[in-house]
């Protein structure tokens, strides 16, 4: 994890900003994937 962080380009401030952006995008993507998968657990109960 530390190695991946240090391999980000730019000075430390840029690295931190990039890391935050990557984490936020990853969480949003994960939320969408979980949401889509959740349809198999419980689609909402509608018929038709």
């Amino acid at each position, binding site marked *: 994890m530390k190695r991946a962080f240090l391999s980000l380009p730019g000075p430390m401030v840029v690295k931190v900003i990039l890391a935050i952006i990557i984490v936020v995008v990853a969480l949003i993507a994960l939320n969408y994937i*979980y949401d889509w998968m959740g349809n198999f657990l419980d689609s909402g109960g509608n*018929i038709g």
Partner: protein
Amino acid sequence: MGNLAVMSDTVQRDLPRTRTPTPKRSVFTRIVRVIGWTSIGLGLFLLGFLFHQLFVTTFFAQRANVALEAEAVEYFEETEVSQVPYVPTGVQEAPAEGGSIDSSGPTGPDQPVGGPDEPKFIFIEGQPDRGQAFAILTIPKIDRLSDGWAIVEGVARSQLKTGAGHYPTTPLPGQPGNSAIAGHRTTYGAPFHNLEILVAGDTIEVETALGVSIYEVRETVIVRPTEIWVTQDRPGAWLTLTTCHPKLSSRQRLVVFAEMVSGPNYETIYG
């Protein structure tokens, strides 16, 4: 002797330092390592998925539903209620499980009940917009619903994430016909989590702009998700609740049929 010791030290210090060679991993070890890390990753992903579905969605849905209930109460005050002549529709018998209903419309005379001299009137409200919270569902027997759960218009995924959803093609609760409502069973607040405990005779209350209508459970059935007959029109005034079945699966649907026993339009429909 002393000189020899000094010389030996010097020789040792001048020798190039050699790193201990790390043992080369075999292909088998590498494969096991990859499988191990993949399994850990997959396990964390699935644990995250379950946590997200069972807790995160419910946390947000419950918060959203509190706001929707307030929105529904506001809607009751703002909505205009009017009276129109009552024309009964769908006088066919309710179908058996797996049956179908002819929804070709009114079969009786196209005039208000009671004849032209003595028309009966029902209270109606306007059709709410999609996503609008317009009613509150209360089922005293189910803990989760004993304090009420907002019903929104529409059964799209986005609408069912916050409240129970009213099928827009069916009449509104409290009005004649078969009003159908869908809700989540295990995620997004799971309003219909324990719907299976309802038996014939249990009561369901729905508050709308018209007032409170009370329904009594008549029948519970399990059907396939494609059996749309359950939402089709029925004679009288009915409330049909649909949810996924079994829990943690959307393979089938649990359907509860309840008939109106009290409400602003009860006398007109059944009188």
